[in-house]
């Protein structure tokens, strides 16, 4: 459930690994959580090209590569780095509190 400011607990911090994305639900949205250099990032999990789930893709050099068609996105910014996708991924604010990961559903 979201609080009044739009924050929602989506995962336990302990469930995040450095080499794998953790899929989560933010309301009805599929998001994916990543941990890079100790910092947690939250992005949309659905590729902007053909709806593949990026959490099943490959994390390399701070980017995630789509498992199906090879589009790449910067994990920290959501910026699209490689085709066939052309649209950036939406990113979300993340807060860590008491070992829990909170993500804010922006309007």
């Amino acid at each position: 459930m979201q609080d009044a400011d739009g924050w929602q607990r989506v995962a336990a911090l302990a469930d995040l690994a450095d080499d794998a994305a953790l899929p989560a639900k933010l309301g009805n949205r599929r998001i994916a959580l990543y941990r890079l250099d100790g910092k947690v990032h939250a992005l949309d999990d659905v590729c902007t090209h053909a709806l593949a789930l990026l959490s099943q893709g490959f994390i390399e050099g701070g980017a995630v590569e789509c498992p199906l068609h090879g589009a790449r996105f910067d994990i920290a910014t959501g910026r699209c780095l490689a085709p066939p996708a052309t649209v950036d991924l939406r990113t979300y604010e993340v807060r860590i509190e008491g070992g829990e990961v909170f993500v804010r559903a922006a309007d």
Partner: protein
Amino acid sequence: MFLRNYWYVAATDSEIGRKPFARTILGEPIVLFRTEGGAPVAFEDRCAHRHLPLSMGKLVGDRLQCHYHGLQYDRTGRCVRIPGQDQIPPDAKVKAYPVVERYHWLWIWMGDPALADPARITDFHWLDDADWGAKSSYLYVKSNWQLIVDNLLDLTHLAFVHESTIGNAALAEHATVKVTRAPNNVVVTRWIIDQPAPPTFVKVGGFTSNVDRWQIIDFTPPAFLRLDVGATPTGTGAPQGKRVGGITMRNLNAITPETEKTAHYFWAQAHDFDVKNAGLTQKIFEQIETAFHEDVAVFTAQQRSLDAIPNPPQVDINADTGVIQARRILDRLHTQEQAALHATAAE
């Protein structure tokens, strides 16, 4: 599309003896036989004289004699006798392929003979290992070889094609899947936790309650798929690496293209429990064989669709991750091989 600088399975050990045996591999007609000492030999299956397949001939000692005019070839492929003539023209020879016998299979090198290093033969030791029971077989498939590779990298199909044996709905709906890749390797790891065992597992493993089931698929180019599969009673620690009270098997696949539209499919099933029980080995084999015939029907029908409309558009779904990564590796290796061939030709 074929990759040439690889060892392929050409035949099972028992297929090849003192009677010349014809098999086409990567579009090349080949004749296989054994010398009197049992060493396997492979030649191009065409007499250098007037093109009769040498597989129609017969062995005279260690020489293969053409059925048409009696030319005889030694084990290196050099013609050493022409009836009624003393002089042997230097071009009277046929291509000989490197062959190695390993794991009860005969492996053939289809590329540059200078690169034929037996150390590059893919490991299938389970077929020849006292710690495993195993039985292998051969299927002739009327489809492109890559359709078979695709099939083994996406096991969600078990839920639909093989529901009477190794499949059930849990496989498609309740699996967690992780795909890892290396430059020349793809591994798809699937875990199905706390779900009913499929019919085959109940029959050979005696499971009476839910299981934790794994399918770990290793793809090695060009077309080797080695599957570590099994199940243990749920909650006993298999996902953490502790396999107790269940069954572990290897499903082993070596696909050799015959043409662009046909393939030789060598496969085996191995098990690490009750390994000396030949009846069990046979029982497991028959279960998997039933499933594989179901697969062959699928491949054949897919190929018919592709023959009717070549290169149609296709939709990719999440389960295709392993399939797509493997195809990407094969495409890259093919491009590299072709570039190297052209570079050599230009020299």
